[in-house]
């Protein structure tokens, strides 16, 4: 240091991080970004593929004509579309009351009891159980004894898949309701069941609705459990739902690898419809939840 120099010279900043540490840090950051980019890329790839192949296959016929037989020209998806709506609605009608009540039991009556803990655990297992096993179960329960495939069996199979989702979200959402609300209801002399129905349920309404929508998104595209229960065919199903009920997922499965061009086009149109319906449901649930918070 010379005397005529200022006391302090701003040196250029030198990082004291060892090169090896910096390298591993940079590697982590780059890989994380790459993997995320890959994930998003795959999403857009799948959506893009559906749009490219599906939009060209869409026409008025898709919604008005029934599925073509092997080797026949034209045709549409009217019967599997309606069939899928019927099966999904049936599944939801069975699962929603049971699921909401079971979730209510866990949140309000069972709370921390042993049995409630067991039910929670088993419900979580059911939540991720392979759906093909649920198809096999319903087959042995409702198809084999009654000697034929039916829409009822398909609806029950879908209900079993939807149920754990509804149980879980109902319980989670009811637990978020503050205790003071229940106490206020009880202080007015309302019995527990009235408090639950008119205070807790009302407060948790939006959250419980998201559970139902999530469950619906989950079952709308399920294929495996319908293979052995509702089956599929190329004509209108009986109003009694006995015999096979045509549905979109199984139709897509059967048409996708078929040797007929119009079958393949219909499979793409069906895929497009089903995917965007499900993604729409998923986005709707997110909107409802974000509005609540």
């Amino acid at each position, binding site marked *: 240091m010379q005397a005529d120099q200022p006391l302090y010279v701003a040196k250029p900043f030198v990082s004291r991080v060892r090169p090896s540490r910096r390298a591993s840090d940079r590697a982590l950051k780059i890989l994380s970004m790459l993997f*995320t980019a890959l994930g998003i890329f795959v999403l857009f790839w799948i959506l893009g593929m559906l749009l490219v192949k599906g939009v060209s296959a869409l026409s008025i016929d898709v919604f008005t004509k029934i599925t073509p037989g092997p080797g026949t020209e034209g045709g549409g998806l009217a019967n599997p579309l309606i069939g899928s709506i019927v099966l999904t609605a049936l599944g939801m009608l069975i699962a929603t009351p049971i699921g909401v009540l079971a979730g209510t039991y866990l949140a309000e009556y069972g709370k921390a009891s042993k049995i409630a803990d067991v039910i929670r655990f088993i419900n979580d297992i059911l939540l991720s159980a392979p759906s093909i096993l649920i198809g096999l179960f319903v087959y042995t329960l409702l198809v084999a004894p009654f000697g034929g495939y039916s829409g009822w069996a398909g609806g029950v199979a879908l209900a079993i898949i939807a149920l754990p989702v509804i*149980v879980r979200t109902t319980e989670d959402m009811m637990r978020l309701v503050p205790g003071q609300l229940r106490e206020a209801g009880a202080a007015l002399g309302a*019995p527990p069941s*009235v408090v639950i129905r008119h205070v807790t349920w009302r407060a948790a309404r939006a959250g419980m609705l998201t559970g139902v929508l999530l469950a619906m998104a989950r079952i709308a595209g399920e294929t495996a459990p319908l293979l052995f229960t509702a089956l599929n065919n190329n004509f209108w199903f009986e109003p009694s739902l006995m015999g096979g009920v045509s549905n979109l997922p199984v139709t897509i499965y059967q048409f*996708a690898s078929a040797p007929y061009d119009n079958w393949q086009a219909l499979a793409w149109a069906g895929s497009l419809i089903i995917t965007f319906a499900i993604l729409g449901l998923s986005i709707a649930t997110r909107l409802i939840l974000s509005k609540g918070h």
Partner: protein
Amino acid sequence: MSAAPLAMTEATESGQLSRRTKPSTTSDRLFEYASRGSALIVLVLLAGIMLSMVIGGWPAFRQFGVGFLTSSVWDTQSDQYGAWPAIAGTLTTAAIAMIVGIPLSLGIAIFLTQLAPAWMKRPVSTAVELLAAVPSIIYGMWGLFVFVPLVGAYVQTPVSKIVEGLPLVGTILYARAPSGLGVLTAGLILAFMITPFIASITRDMLDQIPSVLRESAYGVGCTTWEVVRHVLLPQAGVSIIGATMLGLGRALGETMAVTFVIGNANRLSASVFDPGSTIASRVANEFNEALGMQLSALIALGCILFFVTFVVLCCARLLVARVGKI
């Protein structure tokens, strides 16, 4: 008792309440019984699934004994059935899915929680969750029409050319007919399917770690890698293992996507480039035409799948602290 919470209007209810002197205990008890009964249905369902698998598969288990697990014969003519090729295919595809999927999901979770700027978090999170919501049959379509040709042309063909004649590698990575279908392709599709699922659970786990811990680590001069490696992973390690096991449970039982791309061969091949089958894909393929012993053998396969996934999911649920994610 009606289960529709919104059927009654507020006005009539408050009117009822004010007139009521004594709460009606019968309806109260009925409601409690109804919810208790509904909750018990969950237990009945799982027991029912277990029982139906055991009973339906019993003839096959009795006929073939322990040999059912190790035999590779699947012959409808002579009514001989063995589960080994399907079991091996299930384990191989799930293993490939895990090897590829775990790093991918961890990377995405770390990006979302540690690196992403605020404006990016929401859209990227949404994209990852939408990817998890895409039904498996669509992954199957994408796999069959987009992914399979690519794998055939750019992976199977060149790799087979390189390794031909080499010991070991020449067996495992050799495609006799490079169509793109095969065990490896199925494993990769499974990896893409379980990645968003594991990533979103892991993201929630990492978000729950108190930020004081992270900040103090940064404060003593740690790099992001060191924070992740020495603070976050030890903190959330157990639940991350649980999350990956949930993903494994999914990969083991996945049906449609695998059925589309695995090639559905009954024989077991030593090469991951050759077609194979998994338990789920074989059941999906053969069940509707099966009769008698074949039907029982297929349900017995389902029984094996049930117990394997049951054990995996039990471990997963014991490891994962309950978060508000499905």
